[in-house]
């Protein structure tokens, strides 16, 4: 039997292989590191400059015209000063913002590094999670028949799925709960591109400090698409909600164990070719979940 101890002995044998000489020098690393620091600072400055410029230009455009010049007249009706024009929403729901993904110097997606997990509050009870998760998915889908199955419930982690019937078969809304380190914003920043797609996620910050991050579709498999949303709550728990166009049967058919979420985001080989939730519905599930679980 190839158990853990046997695997350890066998795989550690690979470490005996002779290695070619190291070609990387400390100077190379420090040089690239300094360039990276400079690029990060330059990007920060550029963002600030861009924001100031946009605010300045916006203020100029919205300023009522006068004869002395300098302002641009916006129609004949004076602009209301009590009801400012809201910025255009680029998101499925108001209040979400696209987060800029700054590529590394070598053009690769940023590989953020999470802070080590720290002390956290008590895990919400099973009943609480079941109630809020089911209500959140029901709100989004407008249906009440939502079979829920616990895959795991431990002191600092849990995994539960709701099977959703689609016209061509079952999909799932999955919820994984785990702890994280740092503040919600730090953790969200460290997971800008967890799937390595470089696609800009959308973010919403709630008044209690909770951060929601909605990612674009995972397109590794057209047959088994998925989209994820992460909730970082100030209590030290993160909630990963996945709208999965596949179910346990697809994992089993692909020789994969359906009992645990997959950290690499690798889907099974088969699926429905579409997701049970639209992007807007996934955002609703996230919002209801984030607000409900903290009560």
């Amino acid at each position, binding site marked *: *039997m*190839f158990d*853990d101890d*046997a*695997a*350890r*002995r*066998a*795989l*550690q*044998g*690979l*470490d*005996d*292989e*002779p*290695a*070619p000489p*190291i*070609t*990387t020098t*400390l100077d*190379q*690393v*420090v040089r*690239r*590191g*300094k360039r*990276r*620091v400079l690029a*990060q600072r330059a990007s920060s400055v550029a963002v600030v400059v861009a924001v100031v410029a946009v605010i300045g230009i916006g203020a100029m455009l919205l300023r009522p015209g006068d004869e002395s010049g300098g302002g641009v007249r916006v129609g004949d009706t004076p602009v209301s000063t009590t009801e400012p024009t809201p910025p255009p929403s680029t998101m499925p729901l108001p209040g979400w913002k696209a987060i800029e993904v700054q590529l590394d110097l*070598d053009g*690769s*997606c940023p*590989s*953020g*590094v*999470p802070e*080590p*997990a720290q002390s956290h509050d008590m895990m919400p009870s099973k009943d609480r999670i079941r109630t809020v998760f089911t209500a959140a998915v029901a709100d989004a889908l407008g249906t009440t028949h939502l079979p829920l199955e616990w895959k*795991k419930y*431990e002191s*600092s982690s849990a*995994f539960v799925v709701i099977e959703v019937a689609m016209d061509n078969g079952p999909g799932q809304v999955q919820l*994984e709960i*785990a702890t994280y380190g740092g503040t919600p914003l730090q953790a969200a920043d460290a997971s800008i591109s*967890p*799937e*390595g*797609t470089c696609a800009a996620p959308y973010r919403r910050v709630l008044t209690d400090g909770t951060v929601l991050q909605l990612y674009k579709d995972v397109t*590794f498999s057209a047959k088994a698409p998925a989209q994820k949303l992460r909730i970082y709550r100030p209590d030290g728990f993160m909630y990963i909600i996945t709208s999965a166009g596949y179910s346990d049967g697809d994992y089993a058919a692909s*020789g994969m*164990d359906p*009992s*645990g*979420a*997959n*950290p*690499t985001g*690798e889907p099974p080989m088969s699926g429905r070719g579409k997701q049970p939730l639209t992007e807007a519905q996934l955002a609703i599930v996230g919002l209801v979940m984030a607000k409900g679980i903290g009560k």
Partner: protein
Amino acid sequence: MRGRDQEFAEFFSARFEGARRIAYAMCGSWPDAEEIAQSAFVKMYARWPKIRIETVDAYLRTVLTRVFLDTKRRGRAREQVVAELPETIAPPDAGPAERLALRAALLTVPPGQRAVLVLRFVADLSIPQVAEILGCTAGTVKSQTARGLTALRAAYGNDDINLEMRGA
């Protein structure tokens, strides 16, 4: 108080080779392993003032694994199944045939599961440590380990991998 660069230089000298070996176990190519390790150290340098010394090794493993997984994800669309294994995993002066066969089998394991196997069994880390590195739960590490071992066994084509390989 020592300067930032001096501290980093000592860290680089002490840890680069180990990091490169871990990267090699994950990717199976010495040039790629060198690049992965170098990128990890570059990222470490950029954040060096914020890294606590007591967690620096864990941090390095985290960065190294993320760089590897990012590399594999970016290259995933370009990867093709080939009948012959690439030369980099079977150099003519390599060790015993069993070791080469095991390395070839390991490279067929999906990258995420491979990273878990390498961190658990080559780097000899505990399940909670691997969970922290991958930003997932301990249960996920266990299931990924099980899947990875199943895939490794299938690729190796033999349930009874020679456990005496280490001494071979």
